[in-house]
């Protein structure tokens, strides 16, 4: 009985059923697919179809272009290393934060959130400001004569050779790995932390009672129970690295897939090159393969169960003595590592004169003035993109959640699959595909980039709004609507009078999350239009860095503006999330 209750609003007449069960869901998914699925299909067609004929010729370039195969191997190896490092750091970090009695907990949590709400390569910019050759730390150490050459850790490259032929087959760029690992750290820490909170405490207690030691219990019980969260964290981090375009551009390393695809497509506006398409196809394949393998863990519904189930009372373990010192040392060094980026941004943003000295010699608000004078269009663009992402995110999520939760659709599994795509298909791919689709139409990215960018961002960031709204919809008892129906309200009225008000806090929270996701988006926007007239604030950082007059200080000022906006918005989002039915928590 219970199970069935969560079903449907019957009875439905054949015509109404056609509309509600087929027409509305299909048209919603069609709109979504135009911006997410269609670009992928265009990429596939672009690789395999030349002059209207099927061919494998384009794929063969991997075999005779050693540069291309190196780029692919680089991405996979470094992606793996980044994932491994975040895993090693995030697991103890999240465990300590959740289970141990330590001071300054909310401070540590805030530090964890910081990179999460920053645009992707803001971290990179900050780390370069601090750890780069001419960064604060390198120059300080030089001045103190601790080192005699500028610090090189951000640019160190280790080549890997084929032992048989001696040919260079891959490179490991340590700076890229370091920055990415720290940038994605929150992704792993927060997903694992949410999973930890869902682990049934009695399982661990039972193990202790049966004589299992703490470390054994952690590996055999806790880690195993939190595995779904951990795997979804691994997937998200790896995919983020494959999609990463900002950080490699900042450290000046181009031999990774997303950057190579982006550059290939920039060139191909002048002459045809299949390289960009092949790279995009491979990135999509990696994403889809991971989605397929980790399907159980990244499905939106699973994602949701990781996100919810928060404010439960937990026993906090008290630690003393040497153990406490070790734990605190770890937490403090992690938070220093995590905040270096933000500190670098702040120093640079206020630097008016800063040339080869450890710290700026003159500080002021000049960089911000430059931003407001020369980059003012970016504010308008970012506002358009984020607000569109918010509105489309709210409307689509409300409708799709309602359909998935309330109607017995035979194909809701497919809907879930399609909706998960934006999480695993790199933005560069979507950008390139979209670019190919709309060339020569009224929405040509060359002519009218703002509309198309706004729509692409909105649909790519839909999962961010969707997951919370979907979770909340699941929590709303169907009796809420049934009561209204028996009292004489039609189905449509019931949706507007009962369902929407019940969902309102979740809708606002989800909308704000889509707003943040929209404002920090980079990859697809960069592909579609890297200009001041259509670019977002994140693109603005890139433009400032490539502009010889502005450079890192102005870029940092833009980054700071984004971070502050995101901090405020995420604070608001959390306020609303607390009011949702079932008390959903966002992070």
């Amino acid at each position: 009985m219970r199970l069935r209750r969560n079903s449907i609003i019957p009875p439905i007449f054949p015509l109404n059923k056609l509309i509600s069960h087929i027409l509305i869901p299909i048209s919603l998914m069609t709109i979504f697919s135009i911006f997410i699925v269609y670009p992928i299909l265009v990429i596939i067609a672009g690789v395999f179809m030349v002059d209207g004929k099927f061919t494998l010729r384009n794929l063969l370039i991997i075999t005779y272009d050693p540069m291309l195969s190196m780029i692919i191997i680089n991405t996979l190896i470094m992606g793996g290393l980044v994932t491994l490092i975040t895993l090693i750091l995030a697991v103890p970090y999240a465990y300590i934060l959740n289970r141990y009695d330590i001071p300054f907990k909310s401070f540590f949590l805030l530090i964890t959130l910081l990179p999460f709400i920053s645009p992707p390569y803001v971290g990179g910019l900050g780390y370069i400001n601090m750890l780069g050759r001419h960064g604060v730390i390198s120059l300080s150490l030089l001045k103190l004569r601790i080192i005699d050459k500028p610090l090189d850790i951000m640019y160190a490259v280790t080549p890997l050779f084929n032992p048989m032929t001696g040919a260079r087959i891959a490179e490991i760029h340590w700076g890229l790995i370091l920055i990415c690992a720290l940038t994605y750290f929150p992704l792993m820490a927060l997903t694992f932390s949410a999973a930890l909170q869902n682990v049934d405490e009695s399982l661990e207690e039972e193990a202790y009672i049966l004589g299992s030691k703490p470390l054994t219990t952690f590996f055999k019980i806790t880690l195993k129970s939190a595995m779904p969260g951990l795997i979804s964290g691994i997937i998200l981090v790896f995919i983020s690295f494959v999609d990463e375009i900002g950080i490699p551009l900042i450290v000046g390393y181009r031999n990774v897939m997303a950057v190579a695809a982006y550059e290939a497509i920039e060139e191909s506006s002048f002459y045809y090159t299949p390289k960009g398409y092949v790279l995009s196809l491979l990135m999509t394949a990696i994403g889809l393969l991971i989605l397929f393998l980790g399907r159980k863990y990244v499905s939106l519904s699973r994602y949701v169960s990781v996100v919810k189930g928060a404010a439960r009372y937990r026993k906090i373990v008290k630690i003393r003595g040497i153990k406490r010192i070790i734990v605190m040392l770890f937490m403090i060094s992690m938070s220093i590592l995590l905040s270096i980026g933000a500190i670098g941004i702040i120093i640079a943003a206020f630097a008016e004169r800063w040339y080869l000295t450890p710290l700026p010699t003159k500080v002021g608000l000049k960089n911000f003035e430059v931003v407001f004078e020369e980059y003012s269009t970016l504010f308008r663009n970012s506002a358009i993109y984020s607000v569109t992402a918010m509105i489309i995110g709210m409307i689509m999520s409300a409708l799709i959640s309602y359909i998935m939760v309330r109607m017995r659709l035979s194909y809701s599994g497919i809907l879930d699959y399609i909706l998960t795509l934006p999480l695993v298909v790199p933005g560069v791919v979507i950008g390139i595909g979209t670019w190919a689709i709309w060339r020569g139409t009224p929405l040509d990215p060359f002519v009218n980039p703002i509309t198309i960018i706004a729509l692409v961002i909105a649909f790519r960031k839909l999962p961010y709004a969707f997951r919370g709204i979907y979770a909340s919809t699941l929590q709303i008892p169907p009796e809420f609507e049934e009561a209204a129906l028996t009292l004489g309200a039609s189905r449509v009225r019931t949706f507007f009078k009962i369902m929407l008000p019940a969902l309102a806090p979740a809708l606002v929270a989800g909308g704000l999350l889509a707003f943040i996701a929209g404002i920090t988006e980079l990859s697809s926007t960069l592909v579609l239009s890297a200009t001041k007239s259509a670019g977002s604030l994140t693109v603005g950082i890139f433009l400032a860095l490539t502009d010889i007059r502005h450079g890192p200080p102005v870029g940092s000022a833009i980054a700071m503006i984004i971070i502050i906006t995101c901090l405020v918005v995420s604070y608001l989002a959390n306020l609303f999330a607390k009011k949702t039915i079932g008390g959903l928590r966002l992070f």
Partner: protein
Amino acid sequence: MVVVKLINLTKVFGKEVAVDNVNLEIEHGCFFTLLGPSGSGKSTTLRMIAGLEEPTKGEVMFDGKPVTHLPPYKRGVGMVFQNYALWPFMTVFDNVAFGLKIRKLPKEEIKKRVREALRLVQLEGMEKKYPHQLSGGQQQRVALARALVVNPKILLLDEPLSNLDAKLRIEMRREIRKLQKSLGITTIYVTHDQEEALAISDRIAVMNHGKVIATGTPYDVYVNCPDEFILSFVGHTNFIEGKVKRVLKDGRVLVETPLGDLTLMNAEGMPKKTYLLGFRPEYAKLTKKRTRPNAREAKVVVKEFLGKFTRYEVKVDGQTIVVDLMAKDDPGYAEGDGVYVDVDEDHVMVIRG
């Protein structure tokens, strides 16, 4: 006058038949209860009457007109849900006023009728509170007021008391019964609690596995219904096997059972040799001495003191028999004591051969 009529009503979910060919007639002003264990199809039947589930087969008729394919909002029923389904984002007033606002009544009348409905359920002055500020019992009353305020033809109640504590449950069921009688509204009530069903209903339909097994007054269902399922679901019944030894001169039969030889009325056509017999726990005594020929000794295995009476479970012939002894009849046996079960022959039912 028949208000609700169900004809061959059937609901299939996938492969599972939830409601199987149910036929019922519910008279005007009747307090009618669908009683059954969970999964018996009682809630699904109620939801089909409300229009919240579409029948796979069969008809639902209100006042002689088919409403089977009418959506819930065109049926004019009032419904109270197990979880009350009060909208948390609306005040008590707005919750109750919802149905009236949908009907576009003038503001003044809405105010008047909401006040009236809240008075009826004794919640005057609670208009501005939100559901979460109310106790469970008060929420229940708001749900009732919300269902009644639109003057429904039929009131449907889906396990409305199951979330309340025992004492409040009894209080509320009396109130619901009183309210129903004073309004004269035809009511269909769903519950799995047999005591509640017996206390509150004019008529009861007992359901199991999607089928209606019996319909009747509470007395009929409890006393005059020799059906194995009903006997064990509504109250407790001991089942024993009896072998017919011979027919007596007065037409009664002598039956041999583990509890001794019993002289029973000869139910029409008792030609078979063995029968399944049943009796309620309150229709037996426990004695130290053998009172019936051929009675086998029983052993007390469980003793539960339940206040008004003591419930004994005794084992006889490998079979468990439950006997309730009122305090005045209870000599106070201990677990492990050897006793004899002396059953009241007048209350032994012949269930089947």
